[in-house]
């Protein structure tokens, strides 16, 4: 192991290391701790200039209920859910099918299609912006959940297909050949053999995609208008204008907007890291 395991050092060094760890962690998370503390501050506290200290009075319930009072924040939050969950499901479905085919079938365009999916990951969003906006208008899905969901699925399929194709390629091909010899159809092979085997990869991609889509800001800005379908990222940005100097409310809103990916991350941490570091070990 590198660096040398701390256990091989003296006790003072060990204690020092643990203290350093906690201090570094505290400094690292300070911006986020500040937001959490401010989200339970009273407005008077903020007026008095207490921005970074411990809150004088705890106003957690007041603040958090205040941000949900006019219903807009709840709407944004719900919108994010309505957009994110089907997108994750749709992306995994399409890309697992595509990945299966690219990994296990031999046909002429195979490599070309695979390269297309990889290259799609390096495209700046801005070159898609005007035509995608136009397309959603033409298809009648501009400013609807469908517009955002369908676009996200289309774009994210690139990354996920790349990921899953490589994952499926590592599976033993004999499995498939044996199933084919037994007369299994390609759909049965996909459904009964491949899908169960790629569950870990799907879990990894699932949490990763959930985070990406939940945190999307640009496409929500481009493909939605008004409060109807706007997700919580853009919503929070708008509320910031309305709450002006009510930093306690802005903070509470921020905590709410950040919460689902954070929960997801803690619940599925191992999968999350697996997805993110795919390829970081063996390139």
């Amino acid at each position, binding site marked *: 192991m590198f660096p040398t395991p701390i256990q091989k050092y003296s006790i003072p060094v060990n204690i020092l290391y643990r203290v350093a760890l906690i201090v570094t*962690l505290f400094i690292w998370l300070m911006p986020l701790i500040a937001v959490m503390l401010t989200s339970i501050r009273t407005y008077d506290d903020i007026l008095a200039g207490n921005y970074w200290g411990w809150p004088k009075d705890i106003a957690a319930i007041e603040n958090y209920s205040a941000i949900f009072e006019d219903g807009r924040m709840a709407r944004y939050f719900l919108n994010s859910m309505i957009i994110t969950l089907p997108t994750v499901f749709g992306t995994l479905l399409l890309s697992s099918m595509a990945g299966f085919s690219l990994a296990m079938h031999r046909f002429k365009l195979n490599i070309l299609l695979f390269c297309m999916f990889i290259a799609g990951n390096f495209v700046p969003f801005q070159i898609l912006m005007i035509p995608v906006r136009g397309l959603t208008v033409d298809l009648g899905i501009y400013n609807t959940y469908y517009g955002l969901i369908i676009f996200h699925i289309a774009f994210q399929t690139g990354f996920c297909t790349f990921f899953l194709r490589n994952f499926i390629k590592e599976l033993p091909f004999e499995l498939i050949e044996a199933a084919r010899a037994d007369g299994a159809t390609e759909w049965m092979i996909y459904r009964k053999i491949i899908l169960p085997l790629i569950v870990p990869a799907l879990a990894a991609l699932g949490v990763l995609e959930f985070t990406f889509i939940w945190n999307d800001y640009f496409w929500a800005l481009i493909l939605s208008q008004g409060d109807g379908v706007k997700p919580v990222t853009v919503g929070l940005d708008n509320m910031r204008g309305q709450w002006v100097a009510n*930093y306690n409310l802005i903070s509470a809103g921020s905590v709410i907007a950040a919460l689902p990916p954070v929960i997801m991350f803690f619940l599925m941490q191992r999968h999350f890291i697996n997805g993110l570091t795919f*390829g970081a070990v063996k390139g």
Partner: protein
Amino acid sequence: MTFWERNQLKLAPFLFLSPAVGLFLLFVIYPIADSIWVSFHEWSGVNRYAVDDEGNLKNFKWVGLDNYIYLFTNDDEFYVSVFNNIKWFFFSLIAIPFGILLALFLNQQILGIRWVKSFFYFPFVINAVVIGIVFTWFYNPKYGSLTYLLGFFGMEPFPILSDENYATYGIIVASLFPGIAYTMIIYITGLTAVSKDMIEAGRIDGASGFTMFWNIILPQLRPATLIAVVVTIVGALRSFDLIAVMTGGGPWGSTNVLAYKMYEDSLFNFRMGYGASTAVILFILMDIYIAWFLYRLFKRESTEK
């Protein structure tokens, strides 16, 4: 044997791939081509296909290379944006050494380290709007904690985000918060795969500390570095969210980057063709970078074999 049974191996790829490929062609590949086409036109964004009495497109006028010529010869903001993109490109790479340092710092097996690590990963899953809000406060000259910090060192506080010379750096620093978290995750995983035998062999040969890291550890982290560099650079060239949240391109356009300028030109100044030409430039820059990077990678790998 039915038709399906005889031909399914030939038909299967088509059936399995068509939904994904179809959507991808429609929403990613076609738009790239269309953006390039739009960039040769003057268009305000309304009613693209409307025709006048003679059957010519009324709102969508061919102007050839005019948009590009104007961009390069008449638009100072374009150069400001390109220069800012270059700043983003280089300074976002700071995340890599910091990520390695933190990963080395955390690569110990003590009680509770798993939790400590997950708290370090935290900023990566938080959206840019929240990060932007937090850092805007941090920089606030009246009550931001940076003011206290500078005061502690006897320095005068100054409004970073409203200062033309510093605002971009302020935003880049904010982007390093999730950026470092990301590179750190990559390197922590990378470190678990470093060969124990080679470390032992190095120790026997008397290598330790920095020599060990530089000669034995770092070369083995190459796959991790590759991913970290590509993702960091692509992210830097794409930077948009933090700029939109923190400064909106201001003060006086000084924090503009190509991605943000394009958005503003198209949707607020109603110059779709012009915006598209900016997007095409960004696209080309990104492609050149990726091609150069892959070329170097393949060249190095082929010489090593």
